[in-house]
Structures are given as C-alpha cells and as structure tokens.
C-alpha cells in the first residue's frame, strides 16, 4: 500500500448533508430534557463484571460449607476458582476492558472465547476423581444427578450472564456477538466453578457434561444474546 493510489485524484463525492428540517427534528429530539448521565469506562465495567463470578463462587462455597462438604474438597475447589478467576480477569481485560473500536482483533477475541472452554474441559477432566463407563453414567442415579446438576449450573450461569450483560447493555455496536460470548463465558465459568465446590460428585463424565458443557453452551448463547442486548 506504499504505492500512490491512482484513484486518489478522483473527485470523490462530498458527504451529503441532511436537510435542515430533518436536522432540526433530530437536534430537538436529542437535546430535549438532556439529563446528566455518568460516562463509564470499559475498564470499570470489566472490573464490575468480575463481581458476578466471585459472588457465584461465594454463594456455592457457603452452600457447600452449610451442607458440611469435606473441607479438602471445598479448599481444592476454591484454589481452582482462584486460578480460573485470574484467567477470567485476563480474558475480560483482553477482550472487553478497552472501548469498542479499540479492542483487539476480532479473530483473536473469537479464539479466546473458543479456547478457554476447551482448556476448562481439559482442566475438569484432569481434576476429576475417577471415571465410570459412559453406559453406567448415562442411566439411573448418575444420569438423574447429572441432569439436576446441569440444570442448576445452567440456570445460575444464565442468570449471571444475563446480569453481566445488563451491565454492558447497548455498549457495543461494533462486535456485540463476540462481546456477548465473552460475557457468557464469565457467567458460565462462575457457575461451573461454584458448582465444582458445591457438587458432591467429582466423577469425570459428570463434571465434563454437567459443568463443562454449560460453559460452552453459555458462550454460544451469549453470542446470540449479545447481538440483541449489547448492540444499541
């Protein structure tokens, strides 16, 4: 692009001004009763967003302690949550803490939103305590518990994602889909990490299907919801 563009010399049309009547209508409509509103920064909203997974993990930990869960399990879960909260904070810092138009490239943000659930899956699989055969997991008490646990995890994650999306509502006309996916990730991870502390089962299939799939599905749903909620 260092060469001189031969089309540079063309008489490109000047931007067209709207008619005076339309301009008056718009200016009147947009300046009537104009009240002072706070202009928040993206960084501040990103920091506030971290309160959601923190509160979720706190809530689930309190529940686990109230139900006399083994201390070692709660402690291990909290360490895991702490490590993942650093990953989530970095994700928010990278993907959302700068205003739209100044954020990293779309492909990089899509990569982060896709990669983190995969890494989280691997983490869940590695930290699971034993795995039963899939035929055993897919029926009877295992399956019933997986459904119940997955439903709770999904509901809490969806509520958290919705809450965090309200915080960012109408703030991104440029890339609402990918911003929504990242916010879905925040809600889903908060819920899955909290569930990891409160849930009595740490079997491989259970944690991957009931906790891990929720994160992936909330990322996808977040992308769809973000296009509606985050775009003005």
């Amino acid at each position, binding site marked *: 692009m260092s060469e001189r563009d031969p089309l540079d010399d063309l008489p*490109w049309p000047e931007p067209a001004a*709207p008619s005076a009547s339309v301009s008056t209508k718009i200016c009147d409509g947009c300046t009537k009763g104009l009240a002072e509103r706070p202009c928040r920064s993206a960084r501040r909203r990103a920091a506030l967003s971290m309160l959601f997974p923190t509160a979720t993990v706190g809530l689930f930990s309190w529940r686990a302690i109230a139900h006399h869960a083994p201390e070692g399990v709660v402690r291990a879960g909290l360490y895991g949550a702490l490590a993942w909260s650093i990953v989530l904070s970095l994700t928010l810092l990278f993907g959302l803490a700068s205003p739209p138009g100044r954020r990293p490239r779309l492909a990089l943000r899509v990569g982060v939103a896709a990669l983190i659930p995969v890494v989280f899956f691997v983490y869940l699989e590695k930290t699971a305590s034993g795995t039963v055969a899939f035929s055993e997991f897919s029926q009877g008490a295992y399956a019933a518990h997986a459904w119940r646990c997955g439903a709770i995890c999904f509901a809490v994650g969806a509520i958290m994602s919705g809450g965090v999306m309200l915080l960012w509502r*109408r703030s991104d006309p*440029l890339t609402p889909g990918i911003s929504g996916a990242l916010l879905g990730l925040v809600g889903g991870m908060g819920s899955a990490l909290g569930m990891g502390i409160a849930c009595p089962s740490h079997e491989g299939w259970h944690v991957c299907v009931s906790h891990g799939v929720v994160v992936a599905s909330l990322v996808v749903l977040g992308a769809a919801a973000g296009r509606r909620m985050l775009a*003005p």
Partner: protein
Amino acid sequence: MEAYVGGSAEAFNNLYRRVSPSVMGYLLRLTRSRVRAEDLLQITFSKVHRARESYLKGAPVLPWVLAIARRSFLDERRAAKSRTEDLSPDGTLPEPPPTYEGTPNEVSVALERALDALPEAYREAIQLTKISGLSIAEAASVLGATETAVKLRVHRGYNLLRKELERFARPS
C-alpha cells in the same frame, strides 16, 4: 461525546454537525433514496440518544454511530422484506434504483454512477474508507468483517470502478 453524555446540548449539536454528513452519505449510498436515508438518520440518532449512557469512554465516535446506522438499515430492510404490501408507509410507491441514460460529461458524475453500479459489499467498503474516511480497521469493525475481507472488497471495488471509468474516458 462524553460532554453530550454529561448533559450538554451544545456538545450534541457539535457532534451532530461533525458526524451527520458522513452518516447521511453512508445511508444515502446504502438506500439510494434521500427520503429513506433521512428516516434512517433519525432512527440512528434516536438510538444514539437512547444508548448514550452506555457509550464507553474513549470509543471512536464515527465508527460507533456508523455501526448503529448500518444496523438500523439492515433492520429496516429485513422488516421491509417481511411486509407483504409494496407501498411505503406514506402510500407512495417504493423508489426504484436509479437508472442512468447517456454518457456522463463530468468525472464526478461518472464516478457517482460507477459507485452506484457497484455490488453492495464493495460499495459499502469504498464508501466507508474513501468517502467517510475510516481506517481499514474501523471499516472492518463497522461491517463486522475482518480487515483482510475489507481490503479485498475495496480492491475489487476499485477494479470495477476503474473499468467503469475507463469506459467513460474512452466512450467510443
């Protein structure tokens, strides 16, 4: 923009004066109808007004407003497609795309016609980068495409424009 969010009407008027020609030009290029473009301009600014408290400090304003304008255009087009009647809401016939006869006698007219003849994707990319003055990265974010895709659209659009303008330069 920040002063406007802070409640300054004067700041809005300044902002409007600065961005409205670019937004209007973009909408005019998309709709090819002044009436529709002005309607969409009003919708765009009403959305900007409603979303002003969600504006994030430091965001570039023109791409922000242009992205809202584009979304308004797409919403309007989608709604129009699902409507069964062919008349516009005020009872008039919809405006047909412009048809030109004869050979233009000025480069600016030829360029205008050549631009209108371009496929929408190329036209939009050239309008944003060449006429509205956005960078490739900003245009890509407005169009929801990658920078490479926008560069490609601009390049292909240029090639088509060049062919059209060569025809104008050598009418025989």
